[in-house]
């Protein structure tokens, strides 16, 4: 690439010098102005060439010799022959970096959690590298992009998400195929590292399949629905194989090929002012539980999020309040269980790097809806930079049967590489 740039520079400046020599004879102001204009034009062409070069580099295609062609024939004649001849030879360095340019964005996010305090109901280790999330993301072709998120525990690897998004479908549809977190409510679709808490709310643990939530292989179709008055409305429909959650927190299980689970989500959003906005959502999910094909679990949810962020001080202050209400209706023997759970949380950013938050939890248990767990948390978060985060959370939980626990959770999150931005 270097010799080519050198060639372009040379090619542009040879005529300039020639002009300068001509100009030295004439002394009138008009000529000088014309000369200045000429130099400016040449400068522009050089910058345009540099821009093309950057674009080509970014696209990873080898720079065609034609890039230099628009330069005048005079310059081409003046250009030393070996500079052209040397272009293919330089493939070692240039070819290498050009090939790398097509590599996907790779990122790794570490999530370390330390816990103090006893909890016999839901014990967690004292020190744990809770999750290491490897993200591999790229644009696949003009019609689609691909995103992979692999999560490594201390033992074993899981595919948290891996899907293709078709971005160029007719009718403004956006479709996804692969394994993905379902669009049920808000926290279910979020990765651990974007949550404003160390843990997940009790209602997720009790009613929506535990930490992984509804996360399954299937197809998703989303579309924005035109609506007047600046209201954003979008509808999502998803069909999954029908397996979500594990062990005690198992939510859906597929016994036959027909045991698919379905998820639907309707999302409304409006800017109340320039800095405040409100989002409301309604969700529905349905699948078969572990007892058999005839045993259905249905989930209904509503969510609300209020956000405030003054644009002029966006990096210093913000506030987010969020709540989700979830109903779980589960067919089992001898009675159907109807459980309800909710959380309400708030997070206030009081300085550029500091956030203070709180959460209230209340949830029945899916299999024994007469048992209710309650809890509350206070959370303090510090960001050394955009790429790391230290968080402390005090959590009080009053489990059904009068088991009270007090725990202190400490989390360190750190991010390497280019992790694509997450949807709002």
């Amino acid at each position, binding site marked *: 690439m270097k010799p080519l740039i050198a060639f372009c520079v040379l090619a542009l400046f040879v005529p300039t010098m020639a002009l300068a020599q001509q100009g030295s004879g004439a002394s009138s102001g008009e000529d000088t102005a014309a000369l200045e204009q000429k130099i400016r034009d040449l400068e522009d062409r050089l910058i345009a060439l540099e821009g093309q070069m950057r674009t080509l580099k970014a696209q990873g295609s080898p720079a065609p010799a034609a890039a230099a062609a628009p330069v005048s024939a005079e310059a081409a004649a003046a250009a030393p022959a070996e500079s052209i001849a040397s272009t293919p030879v330089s493939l070692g360095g240039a070819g290498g970096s050009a090939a790398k340019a097509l590599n996907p964005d790779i990122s790794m996010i570490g999530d370390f959690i330390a816990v103090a305090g006893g909890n016999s109901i839901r014990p967690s280790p004292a020190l744990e590298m809770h999750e290491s999330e490897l993200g591999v993301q790229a644009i696949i072709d003009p019609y689609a992009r691909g995103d992979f998120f692999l999560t490594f525990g201390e033992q074993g690897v899981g595919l948290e998400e891996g899907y293709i998004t078709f*971005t160029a479908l007719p009718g403004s549809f956006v479709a996804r195929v692969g394994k993905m977190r379902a669009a049920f409510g808000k926290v279910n679709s979020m990765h651990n590292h974007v949550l404003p808490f160390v843990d997940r709310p009790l209602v997720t643990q009790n009613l929506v399949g535990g930490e992984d939530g509804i996360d399954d292989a299937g197809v998703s179709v989303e579309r924005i629905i035109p609506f007047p008055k600046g209201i954003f409305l979008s509808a999502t429909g998803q069909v999954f194989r029908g397996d979500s959650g594990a062990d005690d927190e198992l939510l859906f299980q597929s016994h036959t090929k027909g045991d698919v689970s379905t998820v639907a989500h309707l999302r409304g959003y409006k800017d109340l002012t320039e800095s405040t906005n409100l989002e409301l959502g309604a969700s529905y999910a349905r699948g078969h539980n572990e007892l058999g094909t005839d045993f259905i679990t249905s989930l209904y949810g509503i969510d609300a999020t209020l956000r405030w962020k003054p644009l002029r001080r966006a990096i210093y202050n913000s506030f987010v309040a969020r709540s989700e209400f979830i109903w779980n209706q589960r067919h089992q023997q001898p009675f159907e269980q109807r459980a309800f759970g909710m959380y309400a949380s708030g997070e206030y950013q009081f300085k550029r790097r500091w956030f203070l938050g709180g959460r209230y939890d209340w949830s029945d248990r899916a299999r024994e809806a007469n048992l209710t767990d309650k809890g509350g948390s206070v959370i303090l978060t510090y960001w050394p930079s955009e790429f790391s985060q230290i968080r402390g959370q005090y959590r009080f939980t009053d489990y059904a049967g009068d088991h009270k626990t007090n725990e202190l959770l400490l989390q360190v999150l750190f991010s390497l590489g280019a992790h694509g931005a997450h949807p*709002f």
Partner: protein
Amino acid sequence: MNSFVSKYAVLLAAAAFLAASLISPSTASAKKLNVVTATTDLAALAQEVGGDRISVESIAKGYQDPHFVEAKPSFLLKLRQADLLIVVGLQLEIGWLPPLITQSGNSRIQVGANGYLDASQFAEILEIPQGSITRAMGDVHPLGNPHYWLDPDNGRRVAKGIAAKLGETDPENAAYFQQRFQDFDRRLTEADKKWLTDMKPYRGRKVVTYHNSLPNFAKHFGLNVVGFVEPRPGIPPTPSHTFELTNMMKRDHVKVIMVEPYFDRKTPDSIARETGGVVVEYLPSVGGTKEVTTYFQLFDYDIALLTKAFQANP
């Protein structure tokens, strides 16, 4: 509950929704090209060359830090109708624009499609890092400094690129866009002469800026940026760095600190008090205040502020 009905109720409901939404026409704009830009400066330039044949809207506001824009769903409403999306590029918008583009459901403006224009390809880019870079350097831009629009020469080059793109997208009006560009070029050359004359007495003056957003401006107008209030890009001021900066400013008689309107004034103000200097809250973008609505007014405003500050603090 009837299992069959409930099983397909979701799908039926979803299908009904989608069908309903398809019926309502989405081709609202009759003829005008619908242009959406990432920042107000690009919108101002597009407006100059597009005239009344385009409608243009920016996602970020002029008084907002363009690194940290929230990817609000309301922006999707603009993007899904756009014929052309113009971005600053060089990863300035990496934190918020990619998911918006993906979710827009608009195939015209996807990266690499005809309706996606990265304006940085037209501009002179400074500070492209050589060799290996790490995040220990702060939030560096690996492709070069993205604040390139604050050089009128780059404004002209970008406007030229936009005019060509508009002509490509709407060939019927290509001549109109070219003619508008010629006119803009003439007016800009005229205005630039005046700006350069105004700034001439202060060529070579040393200034400190909050964030490293002025290399192109400094190069064009001959300012010498000798330090930053941020210790590293994107890292807030630290006491030790502020102390060093204050000492350096005292030693080298640096009097002017240039700060963007979206940064906290506390540290720059205290440095100014300590050094007997002045804080200039310049505008990095069109729309930074209500009065500044064009690319010309942006430089008029900033240069008036700067010359006043230099005059008062010789």
